[in-house]
């Protein structure tokens, strides 16, 4: 058993707030020290905004849970000062194999595109992910940033007070009250905060159970994602094998709907199943076993006045495609710069409504993709199984059927097409960098592009003139002047200019494109800045 599960990383300590006669008011209170709550707090604290995390325990996640992290979240984590450490610890993989019955029907290679600092995916246990973020939070706190994680602080009740929220919190020393200008609910799919506020969480229930077993073994399976449809060792169901750091393997076995969960979880039932899958001779230890069911659903609105929901608390998807934690990190990336501008009085509160618009767009995309994967993996009718099996049979012999095989369409970042923060696309440039897109990375002579675009509005000019700085109604935009001559790999031209000879991009603090034109036009870019900050 991994020690990290049992180690209190942020043990309860009595806080002076608990002694106050009247509740102390805090800027941003975050409920939940999971991946999303931690990412939100670090992002806020790095920008100088007070962020207090309340967590009902004092440890990282029990068991591996989310294990697959995609490029865009890693780039965001790099902005938060933790991305590179996670890549170093994580397992990188590119090859996936698909098996049907007892034969391999095809294999794919993610063929990661060149010219990016971060890999397409890494596998890393959620407990390591959280551990890295907890350490980063403590590092910031030591450096004097306004961040705290209060362990064993359980929220019992929330009251909407209009311009703030009142929280009743239980601790080992008894209860206390705290006021929050802004409350971020990052408290997971079962969100107690959502329940306390009586908010809906509707969607589609999938009537299926999956057994997760994390197994420690010295096996010579390659570092690949193996997915089985209808294998001999789990007839009529699916199975997944995927490697994690430290010799831990994730095994996922579909069990069907009518099962006795407590029985199935017992080692005497789990071990024979695994032996059948891995072979009698393979030695392994069970690290963690769990049975999960899932739903695809989201809240109607992620923002309810001064309470804002992020991650699984706001939206839940099936695990196929790595769209849970990955999309939650993108939620906080989208939210935090907006919240900072609103708190600093530099943007109207209505800017926060665009968090709803943009991230609901992202959540709907994820729910659509993960529902389709689930329908392929677990056919819901006789004919959908016949069609699914036909796809798998054909995929063994004919290339055309392979793109139809859906064992999880892996998470890609969302482009905020149609967002009210976007200005009309005025550059005849590449599709992938149209307004609303996350900026793709580019290797430059002195390092990568993305770190140069972090945490502020940037005017990226490529072979175009512009002022070094523009100030528009409290928003400072700093120019980053590049030229295709600084572009030894030609990726800058390929990703940002295409056939155009010059380009000027307005880029948001979350590294998404807000506007682009072939050259600088002061009036139009000032309008684009106002638009990107919710002022027109």
């Amino acid at each position: 058993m991994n020690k990290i599960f049992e180690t209190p990383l942020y043990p309860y300590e009595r806080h002076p707030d608990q002694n106050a006669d009247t509740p102390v008011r805090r800027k941003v209170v975050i409920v939940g020290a999971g991946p999303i709550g931690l990412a939100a707090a670090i992002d806020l604290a790095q920008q100088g905004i007070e962020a207090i995390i309340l967590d009902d325990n004092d440890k990282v996640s029990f068991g591996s849970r989310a294990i697959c992290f995609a490029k865009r979240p890693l780039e965001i984590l790099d902005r938060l000062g933790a991305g590179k450490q996670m890549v170093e610890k994580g397992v990188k993989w590119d090859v996936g194999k698909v098996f049907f019955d007892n034969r391999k029907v095809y294999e794919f290679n993610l063929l990661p595109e060149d010219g990016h600092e971060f890999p397409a995916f890494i596998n890393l246990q959620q407990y390591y992910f959280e551990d890295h973020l907890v350490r980063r939070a403590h590092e910031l706190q030591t450096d004097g940033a306004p961040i705290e994680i209060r362990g064993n602080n359980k929220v019992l009740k929330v009251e909407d007070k209009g311009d703030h929220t009142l929280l009743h919190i239980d601790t080992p020393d008894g209860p206390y009250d705290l006021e929050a200008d802004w409350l971020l609910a990052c408290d997971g799919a079962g969100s107690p905060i959502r329940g306390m506020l009586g908010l809906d969480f509707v969607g589609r229930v999938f009537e299926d159970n999956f057994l997760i077993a994390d197994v420690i073994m010295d096996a010579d399976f390659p570092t690949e994602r193996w997915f089985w449809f209808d294998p001999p060792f789990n007839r009529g169901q699916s199975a997944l094998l995927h490697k994690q750091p430290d010799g831990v393997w994730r095994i996922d076995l579909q069990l069907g709907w009518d099962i006795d969960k407590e029985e199935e979880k017992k080692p005497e039932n789990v071990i024979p199943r695994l032996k059948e899958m891995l072979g009698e001779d393979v030695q392994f230890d069970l690290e963690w076993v769990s049975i999960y069911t899932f739903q695809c659903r989201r809240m109607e609105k992620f923002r309810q006045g001064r309470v804002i929901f992020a991650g699984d608390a706001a939206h839940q998807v099936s695990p196929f495609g790595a769209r849970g934690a990955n999309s939650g990190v993108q939620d906080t990336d989208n939210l935090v710069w907006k919240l900072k501008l609103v708190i600093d009085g530099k943007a109207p509160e209505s800017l926060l409504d665009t968090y709803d618009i943009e991230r609901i767009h992202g959540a709907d995309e994820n729910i659509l993709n993960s529902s389709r994967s689930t329908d392929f993996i677990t056919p819901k009718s006789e004919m959908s199984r016949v069609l699914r099996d036909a796809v798998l049979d054909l995929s063994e012999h004919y290339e055309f059927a392979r793109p139809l095989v859906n064992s999880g369409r892996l998470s890609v970042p969302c482009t905020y097409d149609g967002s009210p923060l976007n200005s009309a696309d005025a550059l005849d440039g590449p599709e992938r960098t149209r307004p609303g897109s996350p900026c793709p990375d580019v290797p430059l002579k002195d390092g990568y592009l993305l770190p140069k675009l972090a945490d502020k509005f940037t005017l990226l000019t490529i072979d175009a003139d512009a002022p070094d700085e523009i100030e528009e109604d409290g928003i400072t935009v700093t120019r980053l002047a590049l030229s295709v001559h600084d572009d030894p790999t030609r990726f800058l031209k390929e990703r940002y200019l295409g056939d155009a000879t010059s380009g000027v991009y307005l880029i948001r603090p979350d590294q998404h494109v807000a506007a682009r034109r072939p050259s600088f036009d002061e009036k139009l870019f000032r309008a684009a800045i106002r638009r990107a900050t919710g002022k027109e």
Partner: protein
Amino acid sequence: MSETLTLAPNLEQADDFYADLLAAHDGLSKAESDAFNARLVLILANHIGARTVLTEALAAAARQQAED
């Protein structure tokens, strides 16, 4: 202009094709026939490729069912 679905007679040697289609199912169980049909639909759909044509084909097949 995008392609549209042909619903006018278009099969070369229609009777021969129909006989081949029946013959392909000879000796197959119901489950095997269903699987064959599913594979055939997917192969033909890929050959057509155009989304507009496929959408019209799905609608044309559904209309037949609604009239039955």
